[in-house]
């Protein structure tokens, strides 16, 4: 028996290391299994919830892009979308060039979409313009607000 093992033998029986697990009542195994099942259930619910959220979001985004193209009459590929991820509303903003050109290098028109998807489209209640070469849709760059966004004070002037 090595020195280490001799020292370990001096520990109280409940603290001594074991070569193999004792065949006990299985209470610990049951507690662990219940905990694992509960964690698994939480992860499963969170995953399904995320898939549903993501699916709704995708559904909405497809409708938003379609609505922007219908309202503006421009069938551009490069149209940017922004979602209200902080307040969990379904209000999204879709921006794209008013005339053909590289993405964001022309004056952009932004439409604010709200409400449910009806026949593949959503309602555009208002919007604003952004100057050419504006990378981010920040309030300070916006002008010419129209529709509900005007009353909301979405534009600085």
């Amino acid at each position: 028996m090595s020195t280490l093992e001799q020292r370990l033998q001096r520990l109280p029986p409940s603290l001594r290391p074991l070569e193999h697990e004792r065949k006990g009542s299985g209470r610990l195994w049951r507690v662990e299994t219940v905990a694992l099942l509960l964690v698994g259930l939480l992860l499963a619910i969170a995953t399904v919830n995320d898939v549903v959220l993501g699916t709704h979001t995708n559904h909405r985004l497809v409708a938003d892009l379609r609505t922007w193209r219908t309202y503006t009459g421009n069938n551009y590929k490069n149209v940017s979308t922004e979602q209200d991820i902080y307040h969990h509303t379904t209000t999204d903003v879709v921006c794209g060039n008013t005339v053909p050109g590289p993405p964001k290098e022309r004056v952009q028109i932004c439409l604010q979409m709200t409400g449910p998807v009806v026949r593949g489209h959503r309602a555009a209640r208002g919007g604003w313009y952004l100057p050419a070469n504006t990378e981010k849709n920040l309030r300070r760059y916006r002008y010419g607000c129209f529709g509900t966004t005007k009353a909301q004070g979405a534009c600085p002037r």
Partner: protein
Amino acid sequence: MNVAAQSEPLPARTRASSATQWAPALAGACALLLLAATAEIVLDGAVGHSALIPKSPEIAGWLSGIGERLGFRIFLIAVLAFSAGYAGLIAAARGISKRWAITLIAALHAIVFVGPILLSTDVFSYIAYARMGVEHGLNPYTHGPVAIAHDPIYHYVGPDWKKVATAYGPIYTLISYPFGLLGVNGAIWGMKLLAMLSSAATLALTWRCARVRGIDPVRALLLVGANPLYVIYALGGAHNDLLMMALMMVAVALTFAGRDGSAAATVVAGALVKATVAALLPFMILARRSLAQVLAALAALALGAVVAYAVFGVDGVNIVAALNRDAAFVSTDSFPTEIAHLFGKPGVFPIDHDLLKAALVIIVLHLLWRTWRGYDWVAASGWALLAISVTSTWLLAWYILWPLPLAVIARDRRLLVATLAIQVLFVLHQTTPLWAPVK
């Protein structure tokens, strides 16, 4: 003996014989499904850059005329088909011969090997760090790939990683250095070969360890080698996690052979490739309680630190700083992010990182106590690796492969069930684009 008693076992025997008859047919059909799904992903991926295929030099151009550009829908259907085939294959594993299983896994590896880099730009980061060291005389622990913006590999590095110094261990960085001398295409093929050889080593050692523990080695081999995340994500992306897993299995095999010192030194070597595998060491030491292990681990660590310091300076030794930096990253696929969404939060916050670290510490302490009391250290190590991936806010498919080889040889069957369940949830989460309307 009465007639009723005599006739009772017959239905069971008939069922068993019918199952035995069906097993080879089911296994054959599942194997075809796996091969077809892999071929579909590789052939479509070879067409070129898409949302799933990173920008890459044309290493698989000769395959490009057959498929169509790989989109989410086809990819996810192929992954689901692969997963279904995998489940069927595991169910029929008892009827599968050793030669048949090895042939199937070799074929899957070969298909992925000849194809393009799938789903990740990580391999280009590995090559960029190697080229920084051998071609440009820069330290990859102090500079990101942006420092070699004029190098041809820079174009292929993922946008999130261009300014980030390497977080991989110094042994891995040194292993990758010779690849940096091979040119971009040569380095990619070299990395693919390294991933394939690492995978072969992992699988061979899983087989060996399963036999030592009296577990069906064919089933163990199929569980790891035909796993969809293993084949498509880890092997497809030529990830260095495969090298880490190979070293992990070398350490386990050495422990089973009673070579405790070598095993501990190998775990340290693995941790100097990718730090995660260090999780095995405390469980191994607690289970074996051998002074040789502690001394060998310390000696290997000291040697690794000296080499790292000599080649990379103090930044090459300070892996903890790099790990802390990476631990703050957040991916949409991580379970903490999903739970945050479930509770109406937009994502994880700094306090959540602290809570997750606390949860991980509690789990590891519990596992250490259990190992001290005789619980299987291989299972405890697997649980620790699984807990690391589940509590991480930066979760990628190949992270949930870490515990798999341990799970198939562990004495606690719950670990395998939990690992596969986590993988199922990960794949389920990937399927979101499938349910969106077609544009």
